[in-house]
């Protein structure tokens, strides 16, 4: 069984780990100034919503060219967000979102991606 890509995996891991580790291991993270804490408090909603928005609105082709995508996925994410806002229950929101998309695809309303 070939194993040469294990070395590539290790190099990719080495390229990823500092992003994840440096802020966690830096000294003094528990004594950050108040404005920095205020900023970091807002990183969560900003980056998570950015991830959600990019995931459902931007498609990438094989050459990493991007294009705008408008589809049922927008509605599904909106439905999940509404359920979470109303019921504070992510699991129900995810079931609603996945069910909506699966039903639309099963009935041919939208094509499979």
């Amino acid at each position, binding site marked *: 069984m070939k194993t040469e890509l294990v070395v590539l995996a290790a*190099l990719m891991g080495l390229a990823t780990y500092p992003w994840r*580790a440096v802020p966690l291991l830096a000294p003094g993270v528990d004594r*950050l100034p108040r404005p920095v804490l*205020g900023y970091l408090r807002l990183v969560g909603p900003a980056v998570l919503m950015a991830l959600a928005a990019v995931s459902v609105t931007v498609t990438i082709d094989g050459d990493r060219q*991007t294009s705008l995508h408008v589809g049922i996925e927008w509605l599904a994410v909106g439905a*999940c967000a509404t359920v979470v806002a109303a019921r504070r229950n992510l699991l129900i929101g995810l079931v609603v979102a996945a069910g909506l998309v699966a039903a639309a*695809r099963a009935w041919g309303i939208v094509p499979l991606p």
Partner: protein
Amino acid sequence: MSEGSTDLRAARRRLVIDGLGIVASSSGFGLVYGLAARSAGFSPIEASAMSLLVFAGAAQFAAVGYVLGGFSWLGVVILTAFINARHFLYAAALAPYLGRTPRPVRAVMAHVLTDEAFALSISHFRRIGRADLPGYWWAALGTTFVPWNVATVVGVVVGGSIPDPTRFGLDVIFPAAMGGLAVGLMTGRREVVAALVGSILAVAVSLAWDPAAGILAGGLLGPLAGLAMPGPRESR
């Protein structure tokens, strides 16, 4: 940081339930990754090494394409660093909660910090107002690391008999979970503005340049827009 006061057991119960959808998503796309890696000529050991050592779905899928396309290893490693740069923001946002956690434990926590682990654990920490290591391990290992790695092995070994997860709408679980958890973090005007500006910027930069840069731009600049809003006086 201490803004929540929810009962720990209730918060953990909620965290476990919130994570169940992520388990389904991680398992489904771990299978697809294993299958894609097999199709690209990865051996089971190589595909598993990617999932164990890199443990970052977007970068792993991209790597399959790069290897198939004959990219140089240096190019693959540089692109991996670029795609995964957003993890810096996750670690920075979690860091203030983990100041009292022993450094070796933080070093291990860092390796399993993903989009999903961040989303679930930052919501949990804010709910209870402090760090909770068992909660973090559930978010990072229970919902993502273990299902992703097991599914990778199954995908690369079993191969083509796997049903397409998009038929079941599993592809929408990741963005829906990120959006839903973001909504859960919106406790004031500043959070709402940070999320809206962050998402608009992210899409604009993604379309103009690259999604990895877009997510980073949204995550970096959205909070600045939020801070520019007049907020309530901090009570802490």
